[in-house]
């Protein structure tokens, strides 16, 4: 699917983009011998008009992708065109403005456009790379499978802990109850582990990677006296080792999913700002013609 975006239709839109770039350069160079290149020559207006049409069409993807019954091409085709034609805009817009920049709304529109394109390029990167990383992270285990295994591990832990003394039981229960995934936005983004556990005599402690409870269980093994208690503790150790691994994968998956969508938080609002700046740019140019 992701490779399909770039390879769609035999890279048809890559050829379109190449054609647009070559044509833009050809148009730009026709003005080099006549007068200082700028957005105010007929070539400049032409390149600017092309840029505006492209931006409007590229923005339309936000609407098109919500219309599942449209007959005008596949969504994959639209995205492929969106990517390739979007990447022509830095060239077209730079030639349109003829490398003239300043502290004004025209350069603001250019800067916003570049920000949109950069965020889009990052989006393309994560679309191409993150699905593979997600798949690798799951290790052939769906999220449902992973959660079911967690449930099973928790039940095993509770049953084993029920055979142990109150100290172990309380530590295990608290570790199960206070194991966290996600949390705040930054916790999700950075896959932070804010798990805690309440241990005898130590109270509430950090239990990242289930380390605290595992250490506590390890410390308890030499003190076992009741029959079978050591075996229960070893079973608990296996459970928490596995839990730590599963929770870590869950956090990593959550982080990847968040980053897979996060670029849109920049891409879409910046596109709105770009459209606003573009309106102002066009109005300004012709208002003070």
């Amino acid at each position, binding site marked *: 699917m992701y490779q399909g975006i770039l390879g769609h239709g035999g890279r048809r839109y890559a050829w379109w983009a190449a054609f647009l770039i070559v044509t833009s350069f050809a148009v730009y160079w026709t003005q080099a011998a006549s007068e200082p290149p700028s957005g105010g020559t007929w070539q400049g207006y032409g390149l600017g008009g092309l840029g505006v049409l492209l931006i409007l069409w590229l923005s339309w993807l936000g609407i098109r992708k919500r219309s599942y019954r449209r007959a005008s091409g596949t969504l994959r085709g639209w995205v492929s065109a969106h990517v390739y034609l979007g990447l022509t805009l830095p060239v077209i817009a730079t030639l349109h403005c003829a490398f003239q920049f300043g502290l004004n*709304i025209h350069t603001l529109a250019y800067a916003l456009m570049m920000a949109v394109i950069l965020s889009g390029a990052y989006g393309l990167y994560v679309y191409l790379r993150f699905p593979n990383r997600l798949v690798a992270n799951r290790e052939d285990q769906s999220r449902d499978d992973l959660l079911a295994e967690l449930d099973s591990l928790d039940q095993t832990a509770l049953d084993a802990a029920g055979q142990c003394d109150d100290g172990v039981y309380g530590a295990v229960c608290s570790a199960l109850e206070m194991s*966290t995934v996600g949390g705040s936005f930054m916790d999700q983004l950075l896959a932070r582990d804010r798990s805690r556990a309440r241990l005898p005599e130590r109270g509430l402690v950090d239990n990242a990677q289930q380390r605290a409870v595992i250490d506590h269980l390890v410390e308890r093994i030499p003190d076992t006296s009741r029959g079978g208690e050591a075996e229960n503790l070893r079973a608990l150790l296996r459970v928490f080792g596995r839990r730590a691994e599963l929770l870590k994968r869950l956090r990593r998956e*959550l982080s990847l999913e968040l980053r897979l969508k996060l670029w849109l938080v920049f891409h879409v*609002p910046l596109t709105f700002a770009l459209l606003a700046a573009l309106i102002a740019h066009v109005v300004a140019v012709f208002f003070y013609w």
Partner: protein
Amino acid sequence: MLILLRKTRHRGNRVADQRDAELRGKHLTVGCGGDQRLQLFGDGVGAAHARVTPQSGGRLLIECTRGHSVSVDGQQARKVIIGAGQTARIGPHAISPLAPPAGFEAGIEAHIDADVPPSARQRLGHNLIPRVPGRRGLSYLLGLATLAVALGLPLLAVYQPETAEKLAESGIATDGLWTSGPLADAHHLPGIGDDCTVCHAVPFQRVRNQACLDCHDTTPAHFAQGHPVIAGFDDRCTSCHLEHNEPSTLVRQDDGQCTDCHTDSLQRSLAGALPVDGMRVDRAPANIRPVQGFATGEHPQFLAALVKFSPADGWHVQRQLLGSADSREASNLKFPHDLHLDHAKVSWTDSGASDDRALQCADCHTLEREGEHFRAVTMESSCANCHTLAFDDAQPNRQLPHGEPETLRNHLEEFYVKQAALSQRAGGASLKRRVPNVTSGPRCSGDVLACGERWADREMDKLFTKAGCVSCHEVSRDDGEWQVKPVRLAYDWYPGARFDHVPHLVGSLPADGNRCASCHEAGQSSDASDVLMPPLENCTQCHASTAAAGVPLQCLDCHSFHQAGRPLMTP
């Protein structure tokens, strides 16, 4: 508050196990979320389902979060107080007050259905959704903010100038944000550089000529009044004068602004030809030849302004192509440049120098400060250093008047009458001076006046036919009187063009010291009527329209669009 929390796990009707825990705080949070103090799982249990707060008398206040409830005695309630013997059901589980043992201030018993397995999905569920910040609000906010700054503020300057002025005083830019590039330096003037509407007077209309002419009201146009081309010519100032460009050029530098029209041959309006140095132009080619650029074949041969004289019309100018048969100067002077530049024939010794040298162009021709034209060569400034106007060997300091032909005869008559008188006083003795055409010493034995007039006539004849005036001047004899024909040297050979000599004085100095000769072939000119202006081909040895072909030369490097003397530009 120290609370005893008793967790009793039930499997069916039996108690699987029971554990006590101490809590410090005012209440107990209940739900399936990982952050809840009492985690319960199963259908009907929310992530943060309820908060249980011990009350006086061993009662419990149970407050459910939005969308959740507990069941007490078969009644659903979001907020309820239960006392001893009552239970509040949360999904498959229940909560009831517990009489606190000694040391505790409150007690809560949780009846947990142990057959409901722990659910990671329930515990983590709401945390398994990526917390992606909302885009819609941010999009609208950014879009509107951009519109306000990029469109609203500048429009204030147009429609609410007072408000814009106050904002500007606070350092908030308004329509300055719309500028597409810096103004040319010449326009950084108060009232112009800080007010867009001075030039952009009407919204959505291109800058009008009137905006320029408000200041540049003495700018001449390109055409003579009534020229037939005017009707079809777009003479908007902004066609050629571009603002807000980088680099700032202000004037178009390309040839297109000229060759757009001049690429075809255009009819010349002789009647509208501008005077040259105050002289009327009475002859010129009927058409302006086509121009495509500056190269041989692209640019016509130069059209020299030749000074002519006729008794009927006086001094006037004829425009002739260089190299044509008629391109001869008619200054009424005789001057062989080749003779004067030949060291073997003419030499000069500078003051304090031991050796003489050949004459150089700059000995006679002095460049004006503007670098294009030369000061007029005069007898007094250039020729008189070698050529004196002495006519009497005995009195070499006695000079004939120059440039005053009407007084010449009087001057000679006065001189020779005196000589005749002196001869008579000496008893008819021979004069020391040789009188013209008299081989022996002249004597005047008769009327002194007649002798003086006769001798003056002889001197006049000599000056106008053999040596003297006739050496340098064209002369004539009208009604028996010798006349020096009027003299006028061309000052501006190309009134429609400009040329700066100074940057062209480059390269190694020739052995004869005459750098000028690399363009002006004075050394091969034996006649003053030779036009020594270099032809087009001389310039195109170095210059071309494009940098690739030579030193680039644009039309405006030599020609001006606005020609002094033309009617003024119109709005």
